[in-house]
């Protein structure tokens, strides 16, 4: 039976900002769902606060709301739009929890909205530990023995070791292992605080058991299909998001695998998911074969995105179709076109997923892996052997040199790993050890090494030669990769799939044909801090634009979460590492008319030289212009030549030299290693000692730090001659906070007309001087006396491109692509340059809660994982909403604790005065309190931790007891054990918003004072208004 005809409009809730445990996979899911629902003629409404997603593009749904994902906002959207149904299974735990809350609050009933995809009772059975246990046991299966705990008094008699799992948290947040009673107490205390329903499960530890996941879909007439099995290399105990995983499962004989398959089918039936997909996790004892059902996600998930990419079976798409009434025998398989979705995928290759960590960003954080997910991204490798797939995923991580991470070296195999995996990985080391010199290798010898998955670089390192020498020799021997199709059926059915991976010693399959001009677009690889989903957004837009312009668009990427690695996105998809070897081999096969490197962040830039050297054309800004902007000395020369100012700076080869430079240019200085991403290891130093404390880098960059300046971010388009200034944004936090972590406001509220004009003039000069063709991002600082300093320029897509595109309605990537193939600015028909009428705020979301031990303070090193956007008719309302969307709802009443570093005490006075005027009670540490009291502000002093006598309540106690609704605390120094640190950590644990900069505090307090309630407005309406106004202007 075809689709349901009793519903016409469907609302999809996204997963909000990228956080650990919820990343781009839900944009991928949302996009797939929207595509098929629109194909079927449904009216679609999207609510998601994350502007960097494709699903929130105005063309992707009929109505798009960039609103906070809380009951208040979503209910408002539902009231405005009155959809017939709500599909909550595409937006991760966030959407599922929201659906539950909306249902329990009676909103869905009141508006007559049906929950589709997963019914409320099924969601509850999957999510509520007790109900889940009952469901599992009803089909004769077992969950680990467990007890539900709702208070710390219930811990008597519980056995350790045990696992603590809070109910309804995402990515296992707040959970962990306990080996002793004391650890158990601490874990449960934390878990109870994290769980929105104050419930945790203390369960039998199955640590060390093998871990498997099955991706299951079920339709309304009870057909069940197992899409994929996934096996974890890291046994039970490490969160599956942090585990290296393999698909299909490798170590189970058929009878054991079928037992899991039966169990998965039984569980999805018992839980009652009947129109969608689920991920079911199992633990299995290697010795006894005992099986425990660990958990189930009654929705698409990170694992289902991985399974979709691993098999070519688009789970989210199928799940969306099932949700509107189709059955599995009716839905066709895209890749074959002839078989139905009930044909279970079968793989003739192996897939390995690797987690990407960012511990280097969180010094002091515990790096041990456990039940709480800590990785920020992932990579996937496809090969014909485990080792080949493993090494592809392993090297796709693009680790920063020296960054400490799990799996830093091949030797770091987890202790409990299955002997099969150990043998396979041993093979890699044996192969490496067997490499003597590359000159004597025969064609067969090359194929043998390559089939193990070794890269040219690996072989070069083992043979003590260069990668290019290895490549030359290998090619002389005729050893080249062959490309194979991912077709979901192991070749059994003829498929015209456009989805490829490489392997060795085989026949090449389906070489590209066709006479359309061709571009190869390089993606951004794994999500990491500093290079996130924004770049995938840009890549997807580039693909779409080039296709519209008549090009064949070929995508290369290795991140399984993304929309860019959906085979539906491009003309051809190569799921390959983004390294020189892989990219050059793809270029050789595709013979592109141009290679696009502007949109994938730093990753493709690193390959630019090799691509140019191999004779391929880079579209848009030539690599030399990128280098001109990134090389400090060349860039400084350019600025000088054009009479532009920049903070004084110098490059030091040693700490002493760095101090010398600092003395010359004056403190404070910004010190960092040269050529880094996301401000890594960057620090503001006020004294020579602080400069000396920096780790010894080969080249240290020392910049004069422009204090008390307004930091401005500009996104512009250039055609090599003319420049279009698309947006001038202002950072809320002062210079010294990484631009990626700072809230960002469009238009810039503090700039005078003349200053804005001056900024535009500077950007235009830079655009022409650099010879940029396409996007240009410039960061500037404007001092109190109106001086404009250029901080840096990047002639490529920036993090703010999606935000600006949505705030202004100008599709920046589309314009940049057209410029790159020869259009001029004047030919693009862009609206006149002018600040938007509506206020938009982008706020960062920080993962501090995941990294206890690391100081939760903003600084020059970027640490946010994601962002939210909010727009309104005035700045305060937009900022207030953005903070709410970021999970830091600003209080309207209550108490505020203020502790400001000494030099800034006076600046805190107006902030404090406003708060008192708004009726807040103030607490402050003694120094701050004295200044405020002296200014006539009523404030209650509290003891610092270090000053407190025995038994005296301290500020930390105050926060812990929930007596504080907002914390304003600017950091005193770098001492990790300082009072400030304890205050911030307490606020974090208690989920009290904590502001660590004065400018941030001023903006927040202003927002508290003046924000209004404003009706939600769709992005389509906002853009129409913006562009309409622009037309009139």
């Amino acid at each position: 039976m075809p689709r349901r005809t009793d519903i016409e409009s469907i609302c999809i809730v996204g997963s909000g900002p990228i956080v650990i445990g919820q990343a781009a996979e839900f944009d991928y899911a949302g996009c797939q769902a929207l595509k098929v629902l629109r194909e079927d003629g449904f009216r679609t409404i999207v609510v998601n606060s994350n502007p960097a997603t494709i699903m929130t593009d105005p063309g992707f749904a009929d109505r798009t709301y960039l609103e906070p994902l809380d009951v208040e906002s979503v209910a408002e959207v539902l009231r405005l739009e009155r959809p017939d149904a709500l599909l909550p299974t595409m937006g991760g735990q966030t959407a599922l929890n929201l659906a539950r809350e909306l249902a329990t609050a009676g909103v869905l009933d009141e508006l007559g909205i049906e929950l589709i995809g997963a019914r409320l009772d099924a969601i509850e059975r999957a999510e509520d530990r007790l109900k889940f246990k009952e469901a599992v046991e009803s089909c004769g299966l077992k969950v680990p023995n467990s007890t539900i705990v709702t208070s710390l008094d219930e811990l008597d008699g519980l056995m350790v070791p045990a696992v603590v799992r809070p109910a309804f948290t995402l990515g296992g947040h707040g959970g962990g292992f306990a080996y002793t009673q004391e650890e158990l107490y601490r874990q449960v205390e934390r878990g109870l605080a994290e769980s929105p329903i104050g419930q945790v499960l203390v369960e039998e530890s199955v640590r060390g058991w093998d871990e498997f996941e099955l991706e299951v879909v079920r339709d309304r007439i009870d057909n069940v299909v197992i899409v994929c099995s996934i096996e974890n290399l890291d046994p039970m105990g490490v969160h599956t998001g942090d585990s290296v995983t393999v698909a299909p499962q490798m170590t189970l004989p058929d009878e054991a695998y079928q037992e899991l398959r039966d169990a998965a089918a039984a569980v999805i039936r018992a839980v009652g998911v009947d129109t969608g997909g689920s991920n079911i996790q199992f633990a299995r004892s290697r010795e006894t074969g005992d099986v425990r059902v660990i958990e189930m996600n009654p929705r698409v998930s990170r694992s289902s995105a991985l399974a979709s990419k691993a098999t070519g079976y688009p789970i989210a798409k199928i799940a969306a179709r099932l949700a509107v009434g189709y059955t599995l025998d009716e839905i066709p398989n895209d890749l074959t076109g002839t078989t139905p979705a009930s044909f279970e995928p079968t793989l003739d290759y192996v897939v390995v997923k690797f987690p990407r960590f960012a511990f280097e960003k969180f010094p002091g954080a515990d790096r041990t892996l456990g039940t709480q997910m800590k990785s920020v991204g992932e990579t996937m490798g496809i090969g014909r052997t485990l080792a080949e797939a493993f090494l592809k995923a392993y090297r796709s991580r693009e680790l920063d040199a020296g960054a400490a991470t799990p799996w830093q070296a091949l030797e770091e195999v987890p202790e409990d790993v299955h002997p099969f995996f150990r043998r396979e990985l041993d093979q890699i080391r044996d192969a490496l050890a067997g490499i003597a010199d590359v000159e004597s290798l025969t064609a067969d010898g090359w194929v043998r090494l390559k089939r193990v998955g070794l890269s040219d670089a690996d072989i070069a390192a083992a043979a003590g030669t260069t990668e290019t020498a290895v490549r030359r020799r290998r090619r002389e021997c005729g050893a080249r990769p062959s490309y194979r199709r991912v077709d979901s059926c192991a070749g059994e059915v003829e498929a015209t799939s456009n989805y490829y991976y490489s392997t060795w010693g085989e026949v090449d399959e389906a070489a590209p044909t066709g006479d359309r001009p061709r571009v190869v677009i390089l993606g951004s690889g794994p999500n990491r801090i500093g290079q996130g989903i924004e770049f995938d957004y840009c890549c997807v837009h580039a693909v779409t634009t080039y296709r519209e312009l008549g090009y064949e668009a070929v995508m290369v990427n290795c991140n399984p979460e993304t929309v860019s690695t959906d085979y539906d996105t491009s003309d051809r998809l190569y799921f390959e590492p983004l390294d020189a070897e892989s990219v050059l081999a793809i270029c050789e096969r595709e013979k592109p008319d141009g290679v696009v490197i502007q949109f994938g962040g730093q990753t493709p830039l690193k390959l630019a030289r090799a691509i140019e050297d191999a004779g391929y054309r880079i579209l848009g800004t030539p690599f030399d212009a990128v280098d001109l902007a990134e090389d400090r000395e060349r860039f400084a020369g350019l600025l000088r030549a054009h009479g532009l100012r920049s903070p004084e700076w110098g490059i030091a080869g040693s700490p002493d030299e760095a101090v010398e430079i600092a003395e010359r240019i004056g403190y404070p200085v910004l010190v960092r290693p040269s050529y880094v991403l996301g401000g890594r290891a960057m620090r503001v130093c006020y004294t020579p000692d602080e400069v000396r404390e920096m780790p010894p880098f080969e080249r240290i960059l020392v910049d004069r730090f422009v204090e008390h300046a307004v930091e401005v971010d500009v996104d512009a388009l250039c055609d090599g001659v003319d420049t279009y200034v698309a947006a001038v944004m202002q950072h809320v936090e002062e210079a010294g906070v990484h631009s990626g972590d700072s809230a960002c406001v469009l238009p810039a509220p503090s700039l005078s007309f003349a200053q804005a004009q001056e900024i535009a003039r500077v950007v235009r000069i830079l655009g022409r001087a650099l010879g940029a063709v396409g996007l240009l991002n410039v960061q500037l600082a404007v001092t109190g006396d109106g001086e404009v300093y250029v901080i840096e320029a990047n002639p490529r897509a920036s993090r703010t491109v999606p935000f600006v595109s949505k705030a202004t309605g100008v599709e920046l990537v589309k314009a940049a692509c057209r410029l790159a193939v020869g259009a001029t600015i004047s030919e693009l028909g862009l609206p006149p340059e002018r600040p938007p009428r509506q206020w938009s705020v982008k706020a960062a979301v920080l993962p501090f809660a995941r990294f206890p031990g690391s100081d939760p303070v903003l600084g020059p090193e970027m640490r946010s994982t994601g962002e939210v956007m909010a727009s309104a008719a005035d700045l305060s309302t937009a900022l207030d909403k953005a903070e709410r969307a970021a999970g830091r709802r600003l209080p309207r009443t209550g108490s505020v604790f203020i502790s400001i570093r000494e030099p800034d005490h006076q600046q805190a006075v107006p902030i404090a005065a406003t708060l008192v005027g708004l009726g807040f009670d103030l607490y402050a540490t003694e120094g701050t309190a004295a200044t405020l009291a002296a200014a006539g502000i009523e404030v209650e002093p509290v003891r610092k931790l270090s000053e407190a006598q025995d038994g005296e309540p301290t500020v930390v106690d105050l926060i812990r007891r929930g007596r504080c609704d907002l914390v304003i605390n600017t950091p005193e120094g770098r001492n990790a054990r300082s009072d400030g640190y304890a205050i911030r950590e307490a606020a974090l644990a208690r989920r009290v918003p904590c502001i660590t900069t004065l400018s941030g505090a001023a903006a927040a307090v202003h927002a508290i004072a003046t924000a209004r309630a404003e009706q939600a407005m769709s992005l389509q309406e906002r853009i129409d208004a913006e562009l309409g106004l622009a037309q009139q202007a």
Partner: protein
Amino acid sequence: MSYLALADGTVWRGESVGAEGHALGEAVFTTGMSGYQEAVTDPSFEDQLICFTAPMIGNYGVAEARSESARTHARAVLMREARGPDWTDWLREHGIVALTGIDTRSLVLHLRDAGSVPAVAVASDLPVEEAIERAARQPSMLGRALVDDVSTDEPYVYAEAGRVRIGVVDYGVKNSVLRRLAKAGAAVTVHPHDTPADELAGYDGVLLSPGPGDPEPLAGETETVRQLLGRTHVLGICLGHQLIARATGHDTYKLQFGHRGANHPVHERLTGRVLVTSQNHGFAVAASEAAEVSHVSLYDGTVEGFDLPDLRARSLQFHPEAGPGPHDAWPLLEAWVEEVAHA
């Protein structure tokens, strides 16, 4: 040098990890991702060279209990990546030619387009030209009767006690069939393929087993089935299904490259539901609109089952016993035993 030569002259290089010598047979592929030992010991793979589409074979070793019959039936296995030593030792001990390093995906695409063809797997110094010639001289699977090679010579009792007495006609039965029957509560006796109908009619139910080769030349067996139908409950599986088809006026034909795997969706007409099934057949019953068709392949429309209530007979082209493959259709086998018990 070790290689696979097809009758059409194509040669596929590999390395030997099994027995020495060469093995003639029909080159076929199976898409199941696990169950390699079950496949090699399944009598339905008699005289065939099995190419596994799963890239790594042998990962979890071997276990006696996994064998589907008392001996191996496939002549050779063709793998992209064999994993040992348990599996490769076992292959060698059982005299099976085994090649690794084969470009299996290309071979599969070739077989898909060219069809299953006579071939020879070589792990000896047999020259390539001679190998191709020998492969080409082999008879096609079309028209070959193989059940006599794999059937038991004497009747034997598999399970003594049970609530129903089931006679199994062994055209190449798998242990999984017998195991499932016994588990469903049947007393099971296994008979040679040429057991007369009169001898079988005394059972509460008769199961016509799976088996290798072409059903068409099995005139005697087809006649026996014709005589048996209507006299007791009959369930045909795979070759047994094809014999019931032929006995009731349906045609069978050789498939281009067969259905071999663990993921084939089958539409059950009565319930409208889809079963994910284990399949292993090179011949099939031609698509038919006949009312008695109970199951249809969602993959190519071939008949996957009959329900003939007047004759008290049912049949299934796929393998409800699994082994290897999904258990979705286990209930069908149990339901049949139940049906016989309550008749």
